[in-house]
């Protein structure tokens, strides 16, 4: 009995995995197609506006709070050792490398992922997806590709906003509130944070954006009947996006570290 349940579950999981892979493959093909034909550009523009432009305020608020909180938390420890001017390196490197990108992506997963799943899920439940198909249009090309492209292309830019506000927030608390010497703060920051650090944070954005959009669209497309189905799909989409953001982040950190130590073997030792 237990064996049957276990077997059934495994079969379900493998089937789901297969469906998801096929969906991803279709989406990749559709994304390439819509990049090549100018007809789909207006759709991408609309999605960019919804996904990117309207997310800027929340992303900036997220970034600012991350920077400010870090400054308040780390100040006491560093001040105890008389190293408070090093606060700049600590805050800025944490913000641009990890916290900015990851928290911005989590914020986006909540804001965009939920909306995408709910929108596509409702379309599925009210047969609008079937209607698109019945008129001879590929729903993946028409609905999924613009969303994935918009999310993938704009997440890096949103991360730049989050980074910027994180740096400003850290500066505000450290220099203006806690009275650390401003020029020392910036000098230490400049020596500690490299373009590479900012760069990998931004590059992560591509992967996070693609993961959020494709998971959310998939969950919307495979949504079950009724209001309960849509709600459940949204929850699953957010949880799946969140976990995949953390997993992708972990994988990318390892990869970037390996690349860094291959090209600049000495620097990582210093």
């Amino acid at each position, binding site marked *: 009995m237990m064996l049957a349940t276990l077997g059934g579950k495994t079969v379900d999981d493998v089937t789901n995995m297969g469906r998801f892979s096929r969906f991803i493959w279709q989406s990749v093909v559709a994304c390439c197609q819509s990049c090549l034909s100018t007809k789909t550009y207006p759709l991408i523009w609309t999605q960019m506006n919804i996904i990117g432009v309207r997310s800027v305020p929340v992303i900036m608020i997220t970034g600012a709070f991350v920077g400010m909180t870090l400054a308040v938390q780390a100040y006491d420890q560093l001040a105890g050792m008389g190293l408070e001017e090093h606060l700049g390196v600590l805050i800025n490197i944490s913000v641009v490398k990890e916290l900015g990108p990851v928290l911005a992506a989590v914020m986006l997963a909540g804001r965009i992922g939920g909306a995408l799943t709910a929108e596509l899920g409702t379309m599925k439940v*009210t*047969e*609008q997806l079937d*209607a698109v198909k*019945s*008129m*001879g249009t*590929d729903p993946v090309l028409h609905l999924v590709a613009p969303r994935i492209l918009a999310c993938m292309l704009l997440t890096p830019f949103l991360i730049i906003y989050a980074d910027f506000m994180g740096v400003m927030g850290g500066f505000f608390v450290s220099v203006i509130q806690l009275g650390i010497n401003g020029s020392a703060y910036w000098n230490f920051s400049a020596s500690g944070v490299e373009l590479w650090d900012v760069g990998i944070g931004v590059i992560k954005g591509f992967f996070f954006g693609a993961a959020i959009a494709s998971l959310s669209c998939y969950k919307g497309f495979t949504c079950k009947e009724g209001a309960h189905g849509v709600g459940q799909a949204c929850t699953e989409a957010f949880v799946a996006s969140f976990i995949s953001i953390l997993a992708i982040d972990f994988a990318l950190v390892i990869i970037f570290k390996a690349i860094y130590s291959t090209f600049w073997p000495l620097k990582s030792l210093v």
Partner: protein
Amino acid sequence: MYDSENDDVIIVENLTKKFGENLVLDDVSLRIEEGKTTVVIGPSGCGKTVLVKHFIVLLRPTEGQVFFKNQRIDNLSEKHLNSIRTHYGFLFQEGALFDSFSVAENIMFPILQHYKNVDRKQIEEIVKTKLAMVGLDGFQNFYPANLSGGQKKRVALARAIALNPEIILYDEPTTGLDPIRSDIINEIVLKLQRELGVTTVVVTHDMKSAYKIADRIIMLHNGKIIADGDADHIRNHPHSVVQQFIHGQVGEDELAVLRASGSILQAQFLPRDFEK
């Protein structure tokens, strides 16, 4: 496989559809004649909609084959199907209008998807004609949320005929409408069939509408075809299930179930037990 002179546009052979363990269609074979109105009747949940969705391959058969103009279509890729599907118009049960688009944009959608280099003026002209056909010209800038149920279905129908289809499939066009609105839909179905010469398939459980529009009526029950013929044939059909359905009577078995569970149990509390 079939000689080219036969005028059956859609042929379904030994179609079986299962959702998991649930058998919905059981070895159904059927031919739809060109230019005729075929009505599929049957109780809710007997697989009517599932059958019609196979005609346009929105669902794929578990077993069996579907042909459109002698070409097998149930095994085609989605990409090939997209060009086949432009020969069809499908009216969904709830209309399935895109609710973020206005009425005009809804009707423009298939046109913009399939015609290249048409200018705005031409498209607006097409939208106007299609809306006039369903009697709703002037509603171009309305949004689906502001339309009544009957108007939504008519707009959806205008969208379904936007690409000048050869076959129109209607999924319960009169369900949820008052008798007058239902009759308007019936008249539109007849009008489109007369003026455009399209092949029509209507899924319904509204017998009044079925008698009015049908050249041929097919009754599905438990996934099988139990009656097939013109209106008179169905009216005088000997099968008891058919007679019960067309007269809207509950069978003895179902009545027995209702009676058994209809009494109030002695141990059950009622609101009055809590009143002082």
